């Protein structure tokens, strides 16, 4: 185990945002310089998180480590409180990893590069901030801060309908954020009325840390119906981000219109913010409501898996298909986080990580099609395999991983989640095993049409992957296989956390 660097989390948190203006200024000299600098920053950030993981004490993964605590607005219980436990650590690693892959894969961005990388680095800080903040107020600030760069990234560098998609994304998530904030306020207020202390510190609100020597949890102060409403509001706020099915309509637009590297961030990280919020905040804050609403939410999760799966079947646009497969996979995350046993929760966290890698890869491939073949319509991109063998190879691996082939990452997650769901609900959720079948349906069909279709002759020159793409694709593929073969890398980090979580809240 390595020694932690002093202020390690703060450095990880603020390195990108402080580098952002430098990247902008470098980009003013020459656009490419911003790119090289951003890659360097993302790489340093990635190495720092790897160091963080190595210095992390796995045997105490249920406790906050690397905690940093400073007063910010103490009168209102607002503190700068950051730390990582098993769950946060996994998400932070995913963030720095996908950011690195996405920033390397941004080689097709040629317009206004300095501004692009400025926003990109700003976004990386805000996402990491979401995953390591343990003061709800700080959490909210980072949560909202993500929206600003993301809006611009979609609206400036996106596809033809980018402005519509960007504003739709913004409205949806902002409404979710405000509902969430109001719920936070309510919890904070109830806590104050009963203890006389203003605090937004999550661990105090859920009774893991004492206030004036006594442990008090918000949930114990709430009558049943108020608790249900509060949980519902929190779940609503997070469900928009996940997205859970009736609230998902922003996602296909945003994912399809966003430039590919940004789709990677959207699918890989922004959706995870929703799943993370449910596990980190909604359930611990009001566990009794989570237990009571477990069955309705399970049904919503099943709806997610199947509705999005069926819609994915008839998508003509490859990127849209991947976007719907994202929604379908996120159903697994919601299912795993709510059924309340260790297997399912581990599966949900595993799925968050695996889905980030797999869909990141698939979105990057969709970007390659768009850029090299100038279309993403499945029928039109089919038949060029002889000219783009590498892309096709990665597509097959990514697609197979996406449908949950054993030996690849998503399988572990689906298996664990379904196992856990059976443990809790028995045969009532038998239908869930058809979820992977459905994803096999749309994914294999798409692969068949794209890779194995009758060969066509291209009109112009068709290029295969270039070096930056090969690098980022290889990193992702390697990890997909590694996690599929040896899932313990991840489950060991989360083991303590999941056990503690289940024993305490379910």
């Amino acid at each position: 185990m390595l020694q932690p660097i002093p202020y390690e989390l703060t450095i990880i948190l603020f390195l990108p945002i402080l580098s952002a203006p430098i990247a902008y200024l470098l980009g003013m000299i020459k656009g490419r310089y911003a790119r090289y600098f951003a890659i360097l920053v993302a790489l340093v950030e990635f190495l720092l998180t790897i160091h963080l993981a190595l210095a992390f004490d796995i045997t105490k993964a249920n406790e906050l480590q690397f905690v940093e605590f400073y007063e910010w607005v103490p009168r209102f219980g607002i503190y700068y409180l950051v730390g990582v436990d098993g769950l946060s650590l996994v998400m932070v690693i995913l963030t720095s990893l996908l950011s690195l892959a996405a920033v390397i894969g941004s080689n097709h961005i040629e317009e206004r590069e300095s501004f692009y990388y400025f926003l990109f680095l700003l976004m990386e800080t805000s996402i990491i901030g979401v995953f390591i903040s343990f003061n709800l107020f700080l959490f909210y600030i980072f949560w909202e801060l993500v929206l600003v760069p993301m809006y611009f990234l979609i609206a400036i560098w996106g596809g033809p309908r980018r402005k519509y998609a960007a504003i739709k994304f913004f409205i949806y998530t902002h409404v979710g954020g405000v509902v969430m904030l109001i719920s936070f306020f309510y919890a904070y207020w109830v806590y104050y009325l009963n203890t006389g202390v203003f605090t937004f510190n999550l661990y105090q609100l859920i009774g893991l840390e004492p206030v004036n020597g006594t442990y008090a949890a918000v949930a114990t102060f709430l009558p049943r119906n108020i608790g249900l409403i509060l949980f519902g509001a929190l779940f609503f706020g997070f469900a928009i981000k996940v997205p859970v099915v009736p609230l998902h309509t922003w996602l296909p637009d945003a994912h399809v219109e966003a430039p590919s590297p940004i789709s990677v961030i959207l699918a890989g990280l922004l959706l995870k913010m929703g799943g993370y919020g449910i596990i980190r905040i909604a359930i611990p804050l009001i566990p009794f409501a989570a237990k009571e609403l477990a069955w309705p939410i399970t049904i919503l999760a099943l709806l997610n898996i199947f509705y999005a799966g069926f819609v994915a079947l008839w998508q003509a646009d490859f990127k849209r298909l991947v976007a719907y497969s994202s929604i379908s996979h996120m159903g697994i995350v919601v299912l795993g986080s709510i059924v309340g046993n260790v297997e399912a929760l581990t599966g949900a966290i595993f799925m968050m990580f695996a889905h980030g890698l797999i869909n990141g890869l698939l979105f990057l491939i969709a970007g390659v099609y768009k850029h090299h073949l100038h279309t993403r319509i499945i029928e039109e991109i089919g038949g060029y395999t002889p000219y783009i063998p590498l892309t096709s190879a990665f597509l097959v691996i990514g697609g197979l991983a996406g449908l949950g082939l054993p030996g690849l990452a998503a399988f572990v997650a689906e298996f664990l989640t379904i196992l856990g769901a059976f443990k809790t609900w028995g045969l009532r959720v038998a239908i869930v095993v058809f979820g992977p079948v459905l994803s096999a349906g749309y994914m294999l069909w798409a692969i068949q049409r794209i890779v194995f279709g009758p060969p066509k002759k291209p009109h112009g020159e068709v290029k295969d992957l270039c070096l930056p793409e090969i690098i980022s694709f290889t990193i992702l593929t390697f990890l997909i296989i590694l996690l599929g073969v040896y899932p313990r890398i991840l489950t060991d980090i989360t083991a303590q956390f999941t056990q503690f979580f289940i024993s305490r809240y379910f």
Partner: protein
Amino acid sequence: MIITQLSIDYLLYLFIGTITLTLVLDFLKEKARPLNFVLSILATVGGIAFLMIGVDGNLLVLDTYAKVFAGIFLFSVLIILPALYSELWDVTRSGVFTGLILASVLGTIIAVTSRNLILIVVGWELASISSYALVGIRRRDKISTEAAMKYFLVGAVGSGLIFFGLSLIFGATASLDLLKIAEVITSGTYDQVLARVGILIFSAGIGFKLAIVPFHVWIPDVYEGAPNSVTSYLAAVSKGMAFAVAIRVFYQAFLPIKEFWAPIFAILAIITMTYGNLAALVQEKMKRMLAWSSIAHAGYMLIALGAPGTSPVVIIGAIFHVLTHAFMKITSFVAARGVTDITGTDLIDDYMGLRRIAPGTSASLTIMMLSLAGIPPLAGFWSKYYIFLGAVENGYPLLALIGVINSVISLFYYARVIKNIYVEESPKEGVTRGIKIGYAAPIAILTILVLVLGIYPTPLFEILEKSVAIF
């Protein structure tokens, strides 16, 4: 004789002296502008210094509450002065507008530093009459003169209502001093009906200046017609004075009958912010949009009067909001002026592609729009947040909830400006052109302040906490 204690009364002499001097200089010398500029800056800086070391005078009371507001006003004027000189450099003689703005800010200081109703009215009138003339300073511009006329008529009605209301209150309580009025009201030996009618009429008069909704109709026209630096003065200082007076009068004199006026203000606050925000959504011109947003922000501030209670946080938040609103609106109006110099119009659609022409102004405007919308962690977020939190602490969660919903609505019209600047492409070709230094300097200073206050608001909050200890 050595003056050991600087009474605040000397501030009057400082300002009247400067005003006379600038006018005389202007008469004697055609090219006195730079000198007048320096003199006016010195006068405001001197005024701020006075606030720091001054003590109560014979007339004026310099408590922390007064210090905070007078400080906000003087600082705002200090920031506005470069923009005012840039904008009106060739329009008229410098002594005129320098004298007017100094006289006006002197009026606001008198209004906030007195506990006597007569003095409050005197300060109020001095501030108002000078600002009528300021609005119409471009005499040959028809829109400007029309705005001045409209402002004058409405302002006169407002002042009349204030006079009338106060005379009724005087009739009911037989006292002009706020603290004595409070004693009389607490003892209960006064004409209840007369006093209540007086309070209502007084509130209506204040409502004109504060831009509360049924009395707001003049705002968009006047804000649009006035020169931008004058508009920013109206939004920052004039409105701040109305608010300072309202808070002092209601909290110091009428607190014992808060059951009577608090619900009225609560309802007015809801109407004002909702109406202001909805109307701002459909505006095509930048200045009109900012004017309506100013009305909406008056609604947020009004929560302080609509939710009185044991916790002072709501008043602190509202005072904080007067400050941040002043900063944000001064920046926005001055930046809008700079943009108008470049594009020739004031349409929000002409902000398209502004980033290429004026990158610095674009960045500042973006930060201000986000701050006005209440995006954390910027100064505008904290002040709004304190208001809402204070309302909740005093037991008015509904008021806070409506405020939050309004905040969400407001984001859309602010975001439209940002979208035009950064996302849309300009139909015209443009080369990078800076804006005048007189506009750029205030924008830069205030942008930095908004960022700094956003990241670390605690020290300011502690100062404000002291200022409301008098209630």
